[in-house]
């Protein structure tokens, strides 16, 4: 195993622990970790187990899903500008969540919002399968994804447009910015199994994505079934990205930038980039989620805003690199 994988794993574990010990409650690191493991009386175990642990687990899982999904999409489409949101599932999940807020369902039941978002994601995945079909190529998949995203964005805009009062609109806008604050173990139980299942499916495409480096025809001649690869990828991405968006909102740029950052270190071979990007995505989201709690703890800085702030300069770097004749 390359040393960079060991380094990424250590960094991720370190940030996971740092995420556990970061928060407005003034707790010492040792006490809080011990209280989380051994429990006990008082508010500390509750803070650790009910507030910080789900937040850290979700940061790790969602970041990993976004990083893995980004690397898989870039590998499948052989395009370094691809990202997991391209298939439209996250847009549809957001629409589902926005509808739950608009209709007031989100207030009545704690899981109404993520469940509604999951239904939206499932509808998005179904629509994608219907539009892209088993025989369609990668261009059809992108077009179908763009169409679904446009539809979902239009639906979200319509809901915002028709929102009954500024408070509902405000809540929708804030939810869309993405956050891991105030998530519970219920959110973890809802999203984590699906994300793990999706990750297993996506990891199973690694050899096929390697072969796709030489184009679709060459990959097929090397024993890769284009149809099986495509289904596995679509199902895996939908299972990861749908639940990730359902519980955390829209967290952009992670799936796009993480493979770019890691390619010089682990190489461009998709089978190496997939696990590296999962680790890198988890690192980026955990870091950003720690940062939102530290930069302005008194204001609710949204996670998606921070990842976008981190992601934008990387694009400036890519522009600079391509203008100097390099490859992105």
């Amino acid at each position, binding site marked *: 195993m390359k040393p960079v994988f060991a380094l990424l794993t250590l960094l991720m574990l370190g940030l996971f622990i740092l995420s556990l010990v970061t928060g407005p409650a003034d707790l010492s690191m040792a006490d809080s970790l011990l209280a989380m493991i051994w429990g006990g009386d008082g508010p500390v175990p509750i803070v650790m187990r009910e507030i910080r642990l789900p937040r850290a687990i979700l940061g790790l899982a969602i970041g990993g899903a976004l990083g893995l999904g980004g690397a898989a999409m870039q590998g499948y489409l052989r395009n370094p500008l691809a990202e997991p949101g391209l298939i439209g599932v996250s847009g549809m999940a957001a629409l589902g969540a926005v509808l739950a807020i608009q209709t007031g369902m989100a207030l009545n039941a704690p899981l109404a919002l993520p469940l509604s978002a999951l239904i939206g994601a499932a509808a998005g995945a179904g629509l994608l399968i219907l539009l892209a079909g088993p025989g369609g190529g990668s261009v059809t998949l992108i077009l179908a994804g763009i169409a679904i995203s446009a539809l979902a964005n239009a639906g979200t805009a319509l809901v915002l447009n028709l929102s009954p009062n500024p408070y509902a609109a405000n809540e929708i806008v804030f939810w869309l910015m993405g956050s891991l604050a105030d998530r519970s173990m219920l959110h973890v139980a809802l999203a984590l199994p699906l994300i793990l299942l999706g990750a297993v499916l996506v990891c199973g495409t690694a050899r096929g994505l390697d072969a796709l*480096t*030489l184009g679709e025809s060459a990959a097929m*001649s*090397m*024993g890769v079934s284009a149809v099986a690869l495509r289904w596995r990828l679509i199902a895996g991405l939908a299972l990861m990205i749908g639940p990730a968006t359902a519980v955390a909102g829209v967290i952009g740029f992670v799936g796009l930038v993480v493979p770019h950052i890691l390619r010089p270190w682990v190489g461009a*071979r998709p089978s190496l980039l997939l696990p590296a990007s999962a680790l890198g995505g988890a690192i980026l989201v955990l870091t950003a989620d720690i940062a939102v709690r530290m930069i302005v703890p008194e204001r609710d800085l949204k996670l998606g805003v921070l990842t976008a702030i981190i992601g934008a300069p990387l694009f400036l770097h890519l522009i600079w690199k391509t203008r100097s004749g390099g490859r992105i």
Partner: protein
Amino acid sequence: MSLLELRELSVIRRNRQVLNDVSLTISEGELVGLIGPNGAGKSTLMEAALGMIPFSGSSSLAAMGTEGRARKAAYLPQSREIAWPVSVEDLISLGRLPWPGGGYRAEDRDAIESAITRMELQPFRHRTALRLSGGEQARVLIARALAQQTPLIVADEPVAGLDPAQQLACLRLFRQLAQEGRGLLVSLHDLGLAVRFCDRLVLLAGGTVLADGDPRHVLRDEMVQNAFGITLRHVETPDGPTVLPV
């Protein structure tokens, strides 16, 4: 022994008959040149034979499972696509994907090393394939097909875009591979090279096989006039017969 048998293979694309009842056999030790004008159906014939596109009729390869087929035939597509800056060695190792273990067993390493040595790629093995010249990239891709260790190699215009020295080197290698017992189906536009190097030529025009057999017999004046609308001057050289389009 036959490595590929096509029986009455037909392909219809967008309501157009691209291939019409093509029957063809490739045997061990045979270098078969597939010639014909642009749009004759050469690439379609190769893709259908390998089971990559729907067809009617039968192909002995397409009838196998995906992995089984990949252990019988390696394919070099017309487009030399390399999507990512991957090292030469990594690209060549992709040829081991159809085999159990997918590139990590001792026999996989031997196959990869043998392909690197045969294509004289040792100096480049750790370099990024995208930084190599077109000719060097073509050698890398042929090495990938060799690493697949299949009895049959199907190559779609493998010498297109190569300089004359590289074209000769490529076809000499194919000749050697045929002498070692492999079967090769290679589409070519250069009829002079096709006559010089191939054991047999298959002339395809309008999706139909016009002629199949000895190169000089296939490239008869009326056949060439019919398929390409040109005439050929047959020339004897110290290296054997060749033809010049006039």
